[in-house]
Every structure is written in C-alpha cells, then in structure tokens.
C-alpha cells in the first residue's frame, strides 16, 4: 500500500521524500487548500522545485485544492489548478464539484482524486464522481468503519485512500460548521478550522485556558496534555456533567488495522499533518514506512514512539472501530 505524506513547507516536503514517502501532498499559500495557515504552504516556484525533487527520487506529488470555491471568485481556484498542472502535479485533490468539472474538461489527462472534504461516503456518490469527472481515487471520510470501507470497496470503480495517522476531524468532513459558528471561518470555505486569528491561550493560575472566538474551549490543569483549540475537542458543561461532548483531544492511529484495511481493498494510507513541523514529518514518515514494511506483531512497538507527538498525547482508532457507548 502507498504511503501518502503531508508537507506544509518545502523543508517538510524534502524530509517526507527522504524518509520514504510514496507520495507527498501539499497546497498553495492561499484559500484554495484546507490548511490555509499563516506562514504555511507553497509558492508556485516552491511547488515546481518540490515536484522536480520528488520526481528525481521516484516520489509523486499530489496538490490539494480542496476547499469550496467562492461564488464570483472561481478564478482563484481555476488558476490554482492551472498552475498545479503546469508544475507537473501527479494528481489534484479536489472537493468542489464545479472545480472537478473544470479540471476534467480542461485537463482531461490530469489525474483527479476526490478529497475527504467532498465527503463522498457511499458507492453511489463515489461512482457518480468516477463516471462524471473521471476520478481515479477517493479519500474516504473518517466517519466509516472498516466493514463500511470493505463494503464500499466492492462496489466502486476507483482506488480508496484512507487516513491512518494524525489529527482527527470527527464530523462528516466538508460538512462541519462548528468553526463557522464560532469564528465565521471554516475549513470548507477558508481552509482553516478554528483559525489562529480567533484563538487565545491564557494562563489562569496554573491552568492553561484555550478560547476560540467568544467561547472557552478547554481548561487544562497543570501536567495534563493539551490539545488543539477546535470545538469538536472542547470540554463543556452539559447538564450536570463536565466533559468532552464530541471527542477527547486525541489523534488518529489505525496502523494496528493495516491487514484489515488491505483486505478491505484500501490502496493508499494517508498521514494527516501539513500544519506540523518538519521534525514531526520526518519522524512520522520514517516510523510509518517501517511499520508498513514490518510484520503485524512488530508494528505496535514502532508506533508507540509517535504517541508523545500526538494531540493530547493519546491515539484512537476513531470511527474505524466504532462501538456503541
């Protein structure tokens, strides 16, 4: 199975390639990609150089243009697609049907992948995108169980890519409005969930308090591992209890289910984390590559090294192994 690795900067890109990525995904420095963070991402020139570097090392480059186009400003996304094609991207990762139509029509030879943001989670939706826009691969939302993935795999006409490690977006992706509700900005339209411009950390005695817009998201007592200031990982007062309403500050790790994912027909494993530093990318890609090539009983020991780098310093298999609670 291919290992698809994140890069937010050319430095991280080089680290990912050198650590053994089969493909690296990245995006432009604007609202066309779902990791539109300050100081992150690639200029056109940087992308061109990165793709050339990857090609030399036998690694592919996927360019994420995976936000939804703003009516009247489609040109920003069209230009992004044109530039990514001109730079030699091996695939474009797209979420917006309008942009898929544009790419399929204008660049019929360009390989097209369906972004997780498109939230294509059943065979009808996926086959529609395959038939209509010639999509070659779908990145499945992190809301499906492995049994769901196996069922879908039997009835679709394209490859499947799934997230196996990194940050966990727990809602139906591309549909979550929590960030919009709190800040007016969302990953779907602006490329940022819980934008840094609306985040505030303050110390209250020995506690660390995180705030998003007008909302207090969490309060971490001294010594407790912290998490990102996203609403889905917030700790709230609900009726008589105080706790995590949706999900704990935790990261995804389903590498323990690699054999089951392979049997389900998954052809590519995706690592989340374009917003992370190059040290993280280098370490995670190296360990994941070793884990993929190791027998199942050795994977656990390898992957335990990564837990301390994860959100909340904990990992979960998320919806892949969904149980009723």
């Amino acid at each position, binding site marked *: 199975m291919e290992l698809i690795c994140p890069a937010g900067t050319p*430095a991280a890109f080089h680290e990912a390639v050198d650590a053994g990525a089969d493909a690296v995904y990245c995006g432009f420095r604007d609202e066309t990609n779902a990791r539109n963070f300050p100081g*992150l991402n690639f200029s056109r020139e940087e992308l061109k150089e990165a793709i050339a570097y990857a090609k030399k090392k036998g690694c592919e480059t996927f360019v994420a243009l995976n936000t939804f186009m703003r009516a009247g400003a489609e040109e920003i996304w069209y230009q992004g697609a044109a530039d990514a094609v001109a730079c030699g991207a091996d695939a474009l990762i797209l979420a917006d049907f309008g942009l898929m139509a544009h790419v399929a029509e204008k660049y019929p030879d360009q390989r097209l992948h369906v972004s997780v943001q498109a939230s294509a989670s059943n065979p009808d939706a996926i086959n529609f995108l395959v038939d209509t826009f010639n999509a070659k691969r779908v990145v499945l939302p992190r809301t499906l169980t492995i049994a769901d993935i196996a069922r879908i795999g039997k009835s679709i006409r394209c490859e499947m890519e799934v997230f196996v490690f990194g940050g966990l977006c727990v809602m139906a992706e591309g549909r979550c409005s929590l960030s919009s509700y709190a800040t007016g900005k969302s990953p779907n339209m602006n490329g940022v969930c819980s934008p840094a411009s609306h985040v505030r950390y303050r*110390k209250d005695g020995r506690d660390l308090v995180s705030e998003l817009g007008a909302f207090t998201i969490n309060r971490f007592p001294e010594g*407790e*591992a912290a998490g990102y200031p996203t609403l889905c990982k917030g700790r709230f007062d609900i009726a008589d209890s105080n706790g995590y309403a949706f999900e704990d500050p935790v990261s995804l790790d389903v590498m323990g289910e690699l054999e089951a994912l392979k049997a389900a027909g998954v052809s590519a494993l995706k690592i989340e984390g374009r917003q992370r530093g*190059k040290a993280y990318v280098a370490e995670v890609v190296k360990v994941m590559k070793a884990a993929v090539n190791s027998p199942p009983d050795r994977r656990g020991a390898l992957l335990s090294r990564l837990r*301390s780098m*994860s959100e909340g310093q904990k990992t979960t298999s998320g919806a892949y192994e969904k149980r009723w609670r």
Partner: protein
Amino acid sequence: MQLIPPLLTRPLNAVPLVVIERVCRLMFRRIGLAHPGLFERLGEHKAKRFAFLPTDVPLAFIVEPASDTIFVWRKTTDVIADAVTEAPLFMLLALMEGRCDADALFFSRDLSVTGDMEAMLAMRNALDASSIDLSKDLARLAGPFAPMAGRVIGEIRNRALDRALAGETASWN
C-alpha cells in the same frame, strides 16, 4: 521546566545587558546573512514584535523582523510584544532549527504561547521552513576556527536536546 540549573544562569545577572545584547545581535545578524529570506513567510506579521522567554534563563529575547533586530531584556521588566513563546532555552533553539515539533511541545506543555496566535504561527512556520543550523551558522563567527567551533556547538546542542526531549533536567556539574 528548567533544563539549565540556576547555578549556571545566575552569573548572567552580573553581565551588563548591553554586552549580552551585543553578542545576541552579532549572532542574529549572522543567521540573517546565512538565511536572507527567513522572515518572508511572515507576510503581514513582519511588523510585529515576537518575544521568546526561556523558562530557565533570566532573560527575554524580543525579535523585530521588520527592523531585523533582536532586543534582550531582563525578565524583571515586563515584556512588551505581540506574541510570546515560553519554553526551556534549548527547546527554543531546537524550534529555531526545526529539530523539534512545536505542536508536540505544546501538547506536552513544555511550550506555551500567548498573544497574537496568528503571528506566532507564521513565525513558527517561517523558522521551520528555513534551514537554520546554529552549529554551522554561528561557527562562521570563529573565523579560521569555524570547523572546530561548529563541532563543539553541534555537540553541546545535540546532548542538551537529547536530554530535553527525554524529559531530563540537566545536571551539568
């Protein structure tokens, strides 16, 4: 978290601030010369002031990218900056070189950030995108002794960082 014991940092209180600042500016200029595009990723945040507060050193370092200057303050004075990052000195230096992941240090509570998060995130990404290597960049200040200085700086850095990441408090005596 204190990685450097106070015994080692106490003498800094006796050194005039102007001397410390001059040394820091020399190093800052050297890094700037080696990495001319360092602050390009800051964009609109270039005009802001960034404070770095080592938790184990009684000094504060304030960087002004717009004027390419670093200021050094004693921690006894209130720091005025748009964004403030606090962590043990060697972790701050490791972040500067991209040897550590800032999010991981934040999750483990070794690093804290207050103030303008957007500006500090841009700074973090700008530093991470650069290829600063303190042992190489600063060794050049040693002129003909650069290779030896580079080795010594690199060795100290690697040892300190290994200890820091292993969660040890350094015992340097």
